[in-house]
């Protein structure tokens, strides 16, 4: 499995307009696991150059205090795509998000451009990852090929606004119209061993709606969800809080696994029942997740 976000958790990914220094300067204060500095939709056409320069400086010079920093560049169908990569890649963000990934070719083109810039800059190859944003019906139907299109693809992300428009339907509160897309993109990401982010909840005053959508995303297997306002972050993190009973069992499984390891036994058993490899892996993942909620041992539960 590839390192997800250089090993950092990414339950939340906070969108931030790339031309807004007042927000970007406070990234560590928002409490998000990761941020997305946006050069695309959040930036007016005539300010693309200014935002690009600002984001490049911020990513290169500012200590974001452990927050995973990603940048959304403009689409390959715009005149800004090449310039965005030329300026942003040398600043070495954790990943760039490529919007409107329609087919594996979109990812391959970005991969080639990023690889060339990395070589020219003497950067480690593959260091800057790609988050492929799927926001067209065609993109969703090719999710798995897109996920496998390049080694540096680290995550698939769902763009709900554009996708519903492409489907010719409205985005509704309960999100039934996105049910298939969510399932499909999660399955493709899992099959390719990638992270997968759910789309944004756009009504910042509707906390209930956000809560239920975040819980749905967590249940469906998304590893995180995008946020458009810092006030959404706590609710998103809460949706990924591990279930106490499951976590208790995970502590016992890990303990048993470590005991088996010490005693050189091949078989792990908990409460008198055998436990398989994938369940042990899941237990370790859960415990790491627990750390994010201040749960470091069973007594913290």
């Amino acid at each position, binding site marked *: 499995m590839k390192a997800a976000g250089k090993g950092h958790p990414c339950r939340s990914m906070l969108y931030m307009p790339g031309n807004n220094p007042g927000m970007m*300067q*406070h990234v560590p*204060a*928002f409490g998000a696991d990761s941020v997305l500095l946006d050069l695309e939709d959040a930036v007016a056409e005539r300010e693309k150059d200014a935002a690009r320069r600002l984001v490049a400086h911020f990513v290169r010079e500012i200590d974001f205090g452990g927050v995973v920093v990603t940048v959304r560049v403009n689409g390959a169908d715009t005149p800004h795509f090449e310039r965005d990569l030329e300026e942003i890649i040398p600043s070495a963000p954790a990943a760039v998000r490529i919007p409107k990934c329609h087919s594996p070719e979109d990812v391959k083109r970005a991969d080639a451009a990023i690889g060339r810039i990395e070589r020219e800059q003497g950067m480690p190859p593959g260091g800057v990852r790609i988050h492929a944003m799927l926001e067209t019906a065609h993109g969703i139907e090719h999710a798995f090929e897109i996920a496998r299109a390049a080694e540096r693809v680290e995550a698939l992300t769902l763009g709900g606004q554009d996708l519903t428009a492409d489907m010719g339907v409205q985005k509704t509160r309960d999100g039934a119209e996105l049910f298939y897309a969510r399932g499909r993109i999660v399955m493709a990401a899992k099959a390719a061993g990638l992270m997968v982010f759910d789309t944004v909840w756009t009504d910042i005053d509707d906390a209930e709606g956000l809560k239920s959508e975040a819980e749905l995303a967590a249940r469906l297997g998304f590893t995180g969800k995008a946020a458009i306002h810092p*006030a959404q972050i706590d609710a998103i993190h809460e949706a990924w809080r591990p279930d106490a009973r499951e976590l208790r069992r995970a502590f016992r499984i890990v303990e048993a696994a470590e005991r088996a390891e010490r005693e050189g036994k091949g078989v792990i058993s908990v409460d008198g029942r055998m436990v398989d490899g994938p369940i042990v892996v899941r237990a370790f993942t859960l415990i790491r997740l627990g750390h994010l909620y*201040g749960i470091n041992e069973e007594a913290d539960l």
Partner: protein
Amino acid sequence: MSAGQNLRTIENALSRAVPVEVPGLRKYGPYVSPFAYLERQISAPAKGGFPLRLREPRHDKVTDDIKKAVERSGLENGMTISFHHHLRNGDAVIPKILQALAEMGFRDLALAPSSLPDSHDMVADCMRSGLVSRLFSSGARGEVGRAISAGELDVPVILRSHGGRVRAIEQGDIQIDVAFLAAPACDRYGNMTGSAGRSACGSLGYAQVDARHARHVIAVTDNLEDYPLHPRISIPQYLVDQVLVVDSIGDPSKIATGAARISRNPVDLRIARNAFDLIAASGLLTNGCSFQVGAGGASLAVAACVKDYMAEKKIRGSFGLGGMSGYMIEMLEQGYFEAMLDVQSFDRSVTDSMTRNASHIEIDASCYANPFNRGCVAHNLDIVVLAALDIDLDFNIDVQTGHDGVLRGAIGGHPDTAAGAKLAVVAAPSFRGGVPTIKESVTTVCTPGETVDAFVTERGICINPKREDLLECARNARLPVKDIRALRTEVEKLTGVPDAPEFDRNRIVALVEYRDGTLLDSVYRVK
């Protein structure tokens, strides 16, 4: 004295140069430590008894003529007049009276309000015209601050905390000749309260002190009610010499502003969250705890976190203190605290609460914070959350000077509560307007660092090294603790290192008195 001021100075315990004497005022001792006063004899004025009056029964106290009232008060050039600041930015009494005094040709008065509202730029004109030659206040903002910092008053302005002002009055450093006390509700004999009337402001805690100690007391009201005023009397008739009726004592919309709302600014909310986490980790939030917090958006957000915690853990506190916001009254009404002790009310939702809630208690400024009485509430306080303009590596706090060196704040109860509380948390952004909050050394010490336990920002929590116990609590709770030097470096990497403003060190324009009457710091003329 203006050009070659030549005040002889010595260094106090914080290495700040302070004068040993200010001509026209008094001799001064340098600041030593927060409770050094316990070791020394205090000088109190010779017992003069209570100011007596000989008045025939039913004599008439009411007039609507400002000038007549002033004449009857016996005010003379060189005397001291006082006002309270309970009407905040809606106050119309200070300008109205000063204008009348100017028209009557007064000069060389000492102005000793409990504080000056932001809006009173006209006081600067009174300083320039010679009407006001000395100023004693909790703060100086706007045009007044600029005028003082430019050296427009010859005698240094004395800046005191709320507790320190009462001490100064009771010790005789400030001798109020005439107090003009705005009275939102008043009867013909001068019984008054702030919790009724169209200009209602809530508590009259600061005015109560002036009413007790001034040689002559004039109630100024726009709301003459039937005798006797009821159901509440904050200042009783036997302390009041005259009742001056005017059209308006102020603008109600600026006196009682709408209830302050909890900030939605994510940086403020992170600061509040960090401050709350530290308070929770300190172990002080238990049954019977006491708590004070300001009315700023971030402060209210701390209160909101405290309330949620108290609800979850089923904790009932003893009292809330200080400037009272609607949020604190809500906590009282919902049973989170037994009582609220209110020296000054902040917003409209507090104003009539005292008549509604028996446990919302009006206290005077001496009861609030005077270090030299028989026990003030600030000394019974568990937790206080305070603001700051700047802090330095020794945790000294500046709430008075801006980055340009100009006076622009007020001390308020900052040093009083910091000294008294078991846990004094100063909460502020790590940088504001591109300027770092942590300095190597603050421009003006208003609250000594030895009374500040922690500085909380959105980028982490700095604990005063003298509080090893608190540091351990914070570490055990896995809070984002940072060394204050490290945080300063982190922020200066973002902002760059600002240059200090330039001062004329030969010209002291103001002095910061500590609550015990020693001198904390000198404020110099800005070049």
